[in-house]
């Protein structure tokens, strides 16, 4: 945007409101009146009143806003994008990751690494899977690209570490098998779109 | 007993601190030592029953005068050592010693004369501030007023001297000629 355009841009359409600034008193008397007004009517004692009211509300009416963080945590939005979770299949309990490596490929900070092998059941098995949280920028591409909805962002946001690079291994991120029933799945990021069934072109693969 | 201990303690401290003041190369040390010495001197005043004088010493000397010195020192570089060519010390100390001796002799003259009468004797039953007030506002009223005027004049002249275009350099003659007295404008 050139300077000319910048100056001529139409400000009027935007919802700006001009605030009337207080008139500066000209005479000494006016100034005195302003001091008196400020002191007794508006500012000083209103300030004291507000803080006192808050204190009373806090102490006696239970309007305490603080959460004792390490001991109690606020529920986090299911859409929150923190440390990754590896999900399991709800039916069998087997982990969903098939080791396709798409997350590894798409990761823009190059922090996902996996080792795979050919297992006894002739399937691709993920032997190790790590995310370097020193590098991860939580962009969510991995969750978006995952064809099996195996990797999603979870709500674990405490990722401070003593080391520059903190790694999470597959087991750390995987839903514990006994917590399988609590595994939640939400519409939205990294999930099947609500109208996914309609979007797929019907192919006669009825067999 | 207490008086003696206090006197000697204060004496040693005062002399030491004032020596530091006079001999130190560092302005900050000098200033600090001088201020501390002032506090000690107020201690003497308390010992001598001049409570009011002691408090005035504390408030005026320690609280105001020395603070002004400190404030002025911020314009100079207080952490740097003072570089000055000191003349040969021996002569000065000899001279100083002789003067001291003479002073002591002069001051101790009253010891031998017992006939000195108190012009303004202490008022019995009045506390020190009361008696000071009584004397000050009767016999010394005119000097007191003069002193007050003098202080006022000093204050104004100090402001004018130091306040001249504080933000500008005064290194050229022209600047000095062109400077105006700037009074603080009320822009509130």
């Amino acid at each position: 945007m050139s300077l000319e355009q910048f100056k001529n841009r139409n400000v009027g359409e935007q919802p700006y409101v001009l605030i009337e600034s207080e008139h500066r008193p000209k005479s000494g008397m006016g100034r005195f009146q302003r001091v008196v007004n400020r002191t007794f009517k508006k500012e000083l004692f209103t300030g004291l009143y507000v803080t006192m009211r808050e204190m009373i509300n806090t102490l006696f009416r239970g309007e305490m806003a603080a959460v004792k963080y390490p001991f109690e945590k606020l529920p986090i939005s299911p859409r929150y994008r923190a440390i990754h979770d590896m999900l399991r299949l709800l039916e069998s309990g087997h982990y969903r990751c098939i080791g396709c490596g798409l997350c590894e490929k798409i990761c823009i900070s190059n922090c996902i690494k996996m080792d795979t092998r050919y297992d006894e059941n002739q399937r691709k098995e993920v032997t190790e899977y790590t995310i370097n949280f020193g590098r991860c920028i939580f962009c969510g591409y991995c969750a978006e690209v995952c064809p099996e909805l195996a990797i999603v962002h979870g709500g674990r946001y405490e990722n401070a570490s003593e080391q520059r690079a903190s790694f999470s291994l597959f087991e750390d991120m995987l839903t514990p098998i006994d917590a399988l029933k609590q595994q939640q799945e939400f519409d939205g990021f990294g999930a099947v779109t609500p109208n996914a069934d309609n979007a797929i072109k019907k192919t006669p693969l009825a067999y | 007993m207490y008086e003696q201990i206090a006197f000697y303690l204060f004496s040693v401290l005062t002399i030491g601190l004032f020596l530091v003041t006079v001999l130190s190369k560092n302005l900050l040390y000098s200033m600090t030592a001088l201020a501390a010495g002032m506090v000690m001197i107020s201690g003497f005043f308390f010992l001598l029953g001049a409570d009011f004088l002691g408090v005035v010493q504390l408030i005026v000397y320690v609280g105001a005068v020395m603070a002004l010195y400190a404030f002025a020192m911020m314009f100079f570089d207080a952490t740097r050592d003072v570089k000055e060519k000191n003349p040969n010390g021996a002569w000065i100390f000899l001279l100083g010693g002789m003067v001291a001796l003479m002073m002591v002799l002069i001051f101790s003259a009253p010891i031998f004369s017992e006939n000195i009468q108190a012009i303004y004797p202490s008022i019995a039953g009045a506390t020190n501030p009361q008696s000071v007030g009584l004397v000050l506002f009767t016999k010394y009223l005119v000097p007191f007023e003069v002193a007050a005027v003098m202080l006022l004049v000093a204050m104004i002249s100090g402001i004018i001297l130091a306040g001249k275009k504080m933000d500008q350099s005064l290194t050229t003659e022209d600047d000095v000629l062109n400077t105006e007295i700037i009074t603080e404008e009320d822009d509130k």
Partner: protein
Amino acid sequence: MIGLNHYLILSGLLFTIGLVGVVRRKNLLMLFFATEVILNSANIAFAAASHYYGDLAGQMFAFFIIAVAASEVAVGLGLLIVLYKKHGSLDLDDLASMKG
């Protein structure tokens, strides 16, 4: 017992210290400090005399000395600042523009 002599001797010593400072130092601020020392030594002498003779005149003088000292500081410091701004130094040897 502490007598007047003690105070007078103390006062004399302090005066000497102040005097040595005044003669010896070349830095204007140091000169001021030394002057303060001299003034205080006088104050002690006055207060002591006042105490031992039961005469309040001594204290009165001390008050006036304090007042003079305060005035001196106000004017003197203003002058010092002007000087420093002009010459960049407070050394007496440097302030020799009037020297023939």
